[in-house]
């Protein structure tokens, strides 16, 4: 938001408050669900899904990624690729061992 004008920012403030409320609600939901002690696969899927939604809200609105320049998206896209490689390296380790 390089050329942020005051009026646009004032409108954004309402969005920030809404996102804040959503983040609080999602925090309560994820803690409540954790008390059910679901089976690990379901518990992991639900917890990571809610965390991903929360992270997306922070990145999109607080970090302004919803309206950012192409170069930033390109840098983050490349980062995402390397991050996924890093995250799935352990999988290849277990595949090698036939586990």
């Amino acid at each position, binding site marked *: *938001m*390089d050329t942020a004008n005051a009026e646009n920012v004032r409108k*954004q403030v309402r969005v920030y408050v809404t996102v804040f409320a959503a983040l*609080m609600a999602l925090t309560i939901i994820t803690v409540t669900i*954790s008390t059910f002690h679901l089976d690990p696969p379901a518990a992991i899927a639900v917890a990571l899904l809610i965390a991903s939604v929360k992270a997306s809200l922070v990145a999109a609105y*607080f970090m302004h990624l919803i309206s950012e320049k192409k170069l930033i998206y390109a840098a983050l896209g490349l980062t995402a690729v*390397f*991050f996924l490689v*890093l995250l799935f390296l352990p999988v290849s380790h277990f595949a090698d061992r036939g586990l």
Partner: protein
Amino acid sequence: MEIPYTVDPRPDTGVYNAKLGIWLFLASEVMLFGALFSSYVLLRVGAVSWPHGYEHLNIPLATVNTVVLISSSVTMVMAWASLATGSFRRYRIYMGSTVALACVFLVIKGFEYAAKFEHGLYPSESTFIAIYFTLTGLHALHIVGGIVVNSYLLGPGSAMWQTDPRRFTNRVEVAGLYWHFVDLVWIFLFPVLYLL
């Protein structure tokens, strides 16, 4: 020598230089925390048994800390919005709140660590406790870094608002991007370590 493109976007990148710089730094941070998350997955999948976080860790304290950190992210973005709308007085209130909330987070984390030590739970206790201290400790160091930068922008650094307000607003935006990233890391640390 004047530093170029501190206010206006550079024509070829479309953003001011500091913004591109902080995003590239955050990309390297993703890889730093990514390596540790990857290690966590490897250790957890490879372990014969793995404790549930809720058996060893204090979920109510961590939930309060989650609320504190999310609140600090909101006050940070409101601090930037205050400058963008020309209100330096509101900026000081919001930035002061951000620094205060960050300190609250560290105090609560300190209580949590103290309780672990009281029960003899040191990093050498188990792989789970070791990676808990590694991940939350590194995250806490990032909180300390954010407090230092934000305190500067609240105190002596804010003199720039009088001489170059647009540049100062950009500085606060860049500090904000870092701060939101620290919040973002916690959003994943909380369920992964405490709730699963």
